[in-house]
């Protein structure tokens, strides 16, 4: 199925609201979904997975502790994962503040959909902030290391983790149906994506739209007659 990028963004935003995510975080998710699409990642799958996790209670906004040079954000009681859909933008804000601090350390534990969290960082952080990522093999963890240095998103290994200022621990290693492997690299933004739109899996898309539909109000005879302030026929 073919959709426009505008449809992608609006549907993701509404779907987030439909699962109870606050409007501001839903706006972040809209931007993150666009970032994923423009970089050739499975935007619809990632967002859908994240919202399923929220809706089912598997993932949550979680709890965090802050000190002058450290953030530690974890799922808290009753949830298995930290929701990339719910915390993404807020985490990006906090991490932005840590950028100038060479000694800072930040940890997001058990982020449910790491690819979405990456997009949240990329889409919601200032353009000057650059993310170096390292993708370990399965059963290991994912680093997101932030630096104000070189432009571009760079896949790196080992040493980067050891010297990284920011560290993520994730509970799963997949995003939708896509398995991320050692060879994962981030491609450049596809500038032509907005010219042609996006092909998506219709089944997943419809499921995502079902979340978005949760923001809609069931019609009543009264709302039909009065809610729009117009008559039911207009044979003028």
């Amino acid at each position, binding site marked *: 199925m073919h959709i426009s990028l505008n449809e992608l963004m609006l549907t993701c935003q509404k779907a987030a609201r439909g699962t109870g995510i606050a409007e*501001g975080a839903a706006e972040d998710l809209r931007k993150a979904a666009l970032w994923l699409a423009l970089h050739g990642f499975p935007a619809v799958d990632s967002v859908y997975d994240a919202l399923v996790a929220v809706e089912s209670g598997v993932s949550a906004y979680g709890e965090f502790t802050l000190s002058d040079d450290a953030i530690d954000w974890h799922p808290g009681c009753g949830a298995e994962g930290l929701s990339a859909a719910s915390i993404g933008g807020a985490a990006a804000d906090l991490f932005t503040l840590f950028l100038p601090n060479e000694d800072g350390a930040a940890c997001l534990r058990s982020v449910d959909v790491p690819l979405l969290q990456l997009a949240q960082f990329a889409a919601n952080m200032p353009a000057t902030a650059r993310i170096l990522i390292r993708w370990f093999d399965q059963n290991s963890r994912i680093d997101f290391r932030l630096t104000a240095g070189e432009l571009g998103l760079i896949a790196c290994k080992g040493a980067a983790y050891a010297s990284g200022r920011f560290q993520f621990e994730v509970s799963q290693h997949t995003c939708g149906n896509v398995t991320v492997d050692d060879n994962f690299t981030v491609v450049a933004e596809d500038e032509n994506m907005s010219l042609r739109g996006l092909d998506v899996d219709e089944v997943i898309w419809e499921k995502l739209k079902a979340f978005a539909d949760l923001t809609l109000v069931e019609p009543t005879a009264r709302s039909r007659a009065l809610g729009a302030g117009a008559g039911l026929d207009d044979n003028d």
Partner: protein
Amino acid sequence: MRPPHVVMRLERMGSLHQTRISFMRSLVRRMNREKWTIERTQWDVNELGYGVAVYTVGTPERSYSLVAFSNELDDADRTDRVIAEKWDATFALVDGIPDDADIERLGRCIPLQEAGRCSSSELVLSRANKSVRLFDYVVECLADGRQPEIQRLAEVGYLMRTTAVYGNGKFGLSDREKVMREEVMCSPYRAELLSVYLIRCFTHDLVDHVASMRGGGRSVKLDKQRKTILGIGNATGLGMAPYLHKHPALLNNWIVARETALGRVRAVPSATPEKVERFRMLLERAAEHVHQWRTDDALQCVRIEQLSKDLEHIRNRPIDEHYPWHELMQWAETSLSMEAQEMLASLLMEPYPELVDELECTMGADESVSIHPDATVRELLDTIEQSYEWALQIDFEQAGASHWFWYVSKEKLEPRIGVRDDDTGADKEMPLGVAVQAQRVYADLKATRNPHQTVAVFLALHPQHRHIVRRIQNMVCRPYGEIQDNLLDEHMRPIDMLRGKLSFFGATKFDPKSDRWTRITMYQGAPLPEELHADDADDWCFPVIEGMESAASNPV
């Protein structure tokens, strides 16, 4: 420039009129300047007026085509509401010139409107219904060899009325980013309003065609004067109000352009006789236009009546030698109704294209917004106190202050409002209550012990405020982006927002059907395709219909 607290009030937005930089006006100027061509490239329409037509527009950069599907529609199925499922005609504006395969594909999806799927080759999706009062009457007259009475044409003003004009990626359409890559389409609503202009051409051809089929050799074609009178109607509902809320950067730029234009004219130290004469001529025209403005809406009738009197006052006032337009506007601000003040603002811009027209290029907007996480709680409090003082002053304890809630119905996604205490759905409210949100975040900021706490930390602790904080921070450099009224208040009139937006399109003859629904006329008086290259192609503001009775027949 008039300050935001003066301009950004609902009542004033509900008094705005078309200006030189309204989007229809700037489109027609561009068509004129660049010698755009319009050609009917396909006409497969039967004797009853049903079938397919294609109109192709040639611009210096590329071609665009309107594909029109005219369908049979039972009177019982004709409604302007979004909840309609059938229409008299449906349209798509496509990039380039469609071939047979394209038209066949479009024929399967365009008549379905929201239920179909468009492709990124289509820029705009639209539909229109016939005016039952006028369409058959015009066909009957023409088939019988007579021109229809001008009075009857003028009372309606259009043969068809669009009920939706979709763009920007809706239902699979081309994303706006793609449309914007073409310089000719980079102004707001350019593609949508080009579609409407072409729909007008289609309606003119359609009545000629059906009359010809019905009357044979006896029939005549609709004459030029009558075609010029007939624009395109539009029925507009609540959807436009959330649009303004969701696009504050765009709203800011529209208003800034308008206020800058007015400010430049007010700053003119003295007016040449030619400018004064032009103003006086347009004032006369506007007065006649207002006389011909018909509506059944009681409140609008009263306003039109007062507007007529106020225009007479302007006519009787001498034009000062020094800063004439500033003096006139200043006098109007204390002496005339808001309708008249805003019509005067529109009129003052007309004689000064050299000061005004370039501002049409500033009306697009970069709508990207971001949170400034390193700001402190104290700084955010200061921002709210400075930019949202109007919001802090609203007393939400007062009865009626939270009367309405805005929502989207499951019924074809129609935007609606409900009474909070009576209707279901308030839990799915759209966030249009900017004032109440501003007050809530202000209270939580005040309760924060550490004024040096960063916004990042505050929002991590209060994620419910993320939306309003982002909005507030980004409005600092967009002072005209916020409507400074409580959109939940019992006395709020959504139609004020509708009218404000429609005035920027270039609409005229606002005809409210309720406080949340209005009909308008678009392109009435605008040049026909064969007149687009004429020197006076831009001279169609406040059109007057020759031969129409200047009736005080509005049922006041």
